[in-house]
């Protein structure tokens, strides 16, 4: 197993119990979608993996390393192996595309090299290669805030890949994008995971999109895993368990053929 979460619990200082003893295993190279209503704990879960949010109890093991017990320096080394992609891109707006991409290497270079932007030649080469791969090699010196949403998210993806990670933690990658761009971004993330043999946990609101792109789907509700199975097993009953009562017949693609067309109320 690449990633093993056991008994992962997070209680915020406000008293809210965001995660209630989550157990989850992600094998090498598997892309997994994490779905669930707002406030179910999806963001908290992936942030507990790289400890941007400190878990209250339980353990996170990445490729044999127990993440939860690490000191500051060891945690930084562990974070290099987990690339993160954010909902609102989270690019440093006033830095250029290239600087944002190279910031993915911060865990590998010393402070003064990073201060003077003196990154190893092969890092810069890799940055150009990846920017070319996502079609942005002509925008290297543009400031990040001059880019469109889809372009920004591609820079965000490249930044995460620059870390040379084993695992991608992806938080609502398409929530701020239009439907077409959303699909392009999801496809890109999947292709890149496949090319590089990366595992990924993708938090996603859009059930249809999750089903289209991920083979394994995990449903989180109020801090507990209530579904874990292949995308094809996502039935209206399952969606009701995850999200609550609603007319799901139009949402689900795979089972649509077997189901009767719902009559509009």
């Amino acid at each position, binding site marked *: 197993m690449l990633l093993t979460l056991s008994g992962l619990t997070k209680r915020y200082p406000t008293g809210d119990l965001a995660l209630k003893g989550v157990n989850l295993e992600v094998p090498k190279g598997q892309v997994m979608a994490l779905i669930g209503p707002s406030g179910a704990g999806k963001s908290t879960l992936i942030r507990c993996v*790289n400890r*941007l949010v400190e878990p209250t109890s339980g353990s996170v093991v990445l490729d044999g390393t127990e993440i939860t017990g690490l000191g500051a320096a060891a945690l*930084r*080394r*562990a*974070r*290099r192996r*987990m*690339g*993160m992609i*954010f909902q*609102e891109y*989270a*690019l*440093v*707006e*006033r*830095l250029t595309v290239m600087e944002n991409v190279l*910031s*993915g*290497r*911060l*865990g*590998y270079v010393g*402070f003064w090299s*990073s*201060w003077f932007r003196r990154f190893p030649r092969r890092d810069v080469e890799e940055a150009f290669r990846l920017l070319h791969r996502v079609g942005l090699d002509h925008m290297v010196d543009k400031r990040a805030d001059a880019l469109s949403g889809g372009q920004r998210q591609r820079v*965000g993806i490249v*930044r995460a890949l620059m*870390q040379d990670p084993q695992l991608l*933690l992806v938080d609502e990658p398409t929530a701020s994008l239009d439907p077409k761009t959303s699909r392009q971004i999801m496809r890109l993330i999947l292709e890149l995971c496949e090319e590089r043999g990366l595992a990924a946990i993708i938090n996603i609101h859009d059930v249809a999109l999750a089903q289209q792109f991920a083979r394994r789907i995990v449903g989180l509700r109020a801090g507990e895993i209530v579904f874990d199975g292949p995308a094809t097993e996502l039935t209206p009953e399952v969606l009701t368990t995850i999200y609550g009562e609603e007319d799901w017949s139009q949402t689900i693609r795979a089972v649509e053929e077997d189901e009767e067309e719902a009559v509009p109320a």
Partner: protein
Amino acid sequence: MSATAFDAAAAARAWRPPPLIASPLLRYAIYGGALLYALLAVGTLEVNWARAAEGLERGARFIAGFFPPDFVTKRHDIMEGLMESLTMTVVSTVIGVALSIPVAVGAARNLAPLPIYLFCRAIIAISRTFQEIIIAIVFVAMVGFGPLAGMLTLSFATIGFMAKLIAEDIEDIAEEQAEAVRATGASWFQLLAWGILPQVKPRLIGLSAYRLDINFRESAVLGLVGAGGIGDTLNTAFDRYEFDTAAAILIVIIAIVLAAEYSSSWIRRKVQ
């Protein structure tokens, strides 16, 4: 189904924007009290109109003494005072800004743990509580007359001013950009340099330029308590009743303040 139709027109007619103070009694009490106080205050002022008329004439004579301004007789003293003021301004701004950055980081609640936060906020509070003149008097007593006292004063005042405003800017940053930098495995100093600095840099540069401008103006005042600079020269000119030289010095100060103000506002526009 409700039996009566909803009358939007009537509701719109009855609607009033909510007043600042909800209770009408309290509202009129406050308005009435403020008006009464203003009337009583004006009533207690004692103005000696005869004395004021006399003073007007004296003021006119005083100002007439300024003309024509004399740049020439004391030009060496003026130049010396001016150079001293400019040096004091630049050195104290550089030192003050450099020292204010660590204080600002420590005074930002989203970066610093509570004890450090309170300590840095205390430095800011002390620096901002005392007016420059008071600090200058203390430093003059400590290090003697001259520009060193002025420089220390301005550096100290700069720390409070810059650190407070930069700390507030740091607290207002977009958290997710900093979070993304942390997620790459960046160290704490890399987080500052890559996640925080790009977000506060325009304000840092703009405020530094503004502070340079303030420090020059202050340096002209600090001379009055013996802390060196053009203010010293001005003070001497007044003490010797050389009003024409004093006028020349004032004109030089005004010209430099205007130049500093224009250039600092130009810099602030540019860095946005």
